[in-house]
């Protein structure tokens, strides 16, 4: 099941029978007026927004987010390497910050926005191309974790220094030792993004001038 079904029909409140056009409005009403959860979610059902798509997944309490992403939803970019929060290979961005999915219980992620390497690739983020260009990988198993961590950095800090990049990536282990290429690739990606931003600005200015 990919989409959380949106109810189109009119909804009525089980507490006071007030009716609403949309389920979301009813939900807000119940939370605000009756101080209660609108519908007790079935045990273990969580909603995740992953790369801007809604997912509803039944999870066991012991399942990690990495397990859910990798084994249940087929997002194999979140790799299992150390399985103890040491290596960064399973990094995903949750609510804008890089977290280790192997040390995150999926059941605690209900309602979270998650970005994985698959999403970063889908938006043609320049990091991907720069990683290829700089050959910032060998066996590639840990690479997605680096890319996701770097993406989180660039979201926060669009113009990082080399030291800031090294610092941000310091929790990602690469057994092949590809480390020296990562800061270069991230730096170039930052420049690509900057150029893209400038292009947009210039276009807007030109547009204005034309108008």
């Amino acid at each position: 099941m990919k989409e959380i079904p949106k109810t189109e029909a009119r909804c009525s409140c089980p507490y006071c029978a007030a009716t609403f056009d949309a389920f979301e409005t009813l939900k807000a009403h119940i939370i605000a007026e009756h101080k209660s959860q609108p519908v007790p979610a079935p045990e273990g059902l969580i909603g995740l927004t992953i790369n801007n798509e809604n997912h509803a997944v039944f999870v066991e309490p012991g399942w990690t987010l990495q397990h859910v992403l990798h084994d249940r939803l087929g997002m194999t970019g979140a790799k299992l390497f150390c399985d103890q929060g040491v290596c960064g290979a399973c990094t995903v961005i949750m609510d804008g910050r890089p977290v280790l999915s192997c040390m995150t219980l999926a059941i605690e992620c209900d309602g979270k926005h998650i970005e994985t390497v698959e999403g970063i690739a889908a938006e043609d983020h320049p990091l991907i191309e720069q990683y290829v260009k700089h050959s910032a990988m060998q066996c590639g198993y840990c690479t997605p974790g680096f890319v996701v961590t770097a993406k989180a950095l660039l979201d926060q800090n669009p113009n990082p220094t080399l030291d800031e990049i090294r610092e941000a990536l310091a929790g990602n282990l690469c057994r092949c030792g590809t480390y020296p290429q990562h800061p270069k690739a991230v730096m170039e990606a930052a420049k690509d993004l900057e150029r893209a931003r400038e292009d947009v600005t210039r276009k807007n200015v030109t547009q204005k001038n034309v108008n």
Partner: protein
Amino acid sequence: MKKFVHMNAMTIDEATATLGRYGDRASVIAGGTDLLGKMKAEILPTYPEALVNLKTIPGLDFIKEENGLLKIGALTRLADIASHPVIQRRYAALAEAAHRTASPNIRVMGTLGGNLCQDIRCWYYRNPHNRFPCLRKGGGRCYAIRGDNRYHSIFGGSVEEGCYAVHPSDTAPALIALNAKIKTSKRIVGIQDFFKVQVRKTTILDPDEIVTEIHVPAPKEGTRNCFLKFAVRKTIDFAIVNCAAMVSCKKGIVHAAGICLNAVHINPYRAVKAEDFLIGKEINDENLDAAAVAGVSGAKPLSHNGYMVQIAKTLIKRAVLACKPHEPTA
């Protein structure tokens, strides 16, 4: 991982009530980076039947200054503490300790409360599948004494004098040096009195008690504080030794000092003798050496960890030196 029940607490009361019902059969989970590691490796003889998630309790993630106190919510992420400009400026020891903890992504997950309440480090205690049923687990003996104890206590054992594990927190010594207080769901205690490793316990917290806030008094004028960490690698690792210091000087003479080591004993180890020695003295090489020697004078290293004494000495010296007031510029 063994199966467990998971619940999201919405309020502090709900959390503590649930914990009260379960007694010691439940654990709280915040960042989870220590707890899940222990549960995955199944290092313990028993497992929590329930996890109570504190992250769903609103209002425990904040940093604010109020009435001369820096107040930090227990759920505040280490990364936020490390990058907070006020903490960086006035509570440098805490900012640096948070910054040096583990690795960047762990700091985004790990909370200050969790960092203080984390379990001890010992590779016997933490060996998978409860391979070593040790004193700390309520079992027979400490395996480190006769085993490989290169990362173990240099200041003797505890838990009935037998457990030589170390307390690994980086933020704990910083907060001790800064004279912080811990606010729990039941009480406010000085952080000095907070750590108390016992069988299945690391702090004085009752089974139904949780840390809610950390209060740090604003350092007085003429006071400087700092934190240093020594580890094998520059990132990821727990400290072999860390040290935080806060020193107040007047006209070049020390009149108050707080120095705390960690990762050298089962609880954070306050270097009281070094503090006492420094009072009324100038910060110079000779006094630093003597203070460092005094600070580790209680050391009783084991077969493999004598080197930690030297490192502890060095860190005491350097931490205090870093607190020396800048020479007034001409």
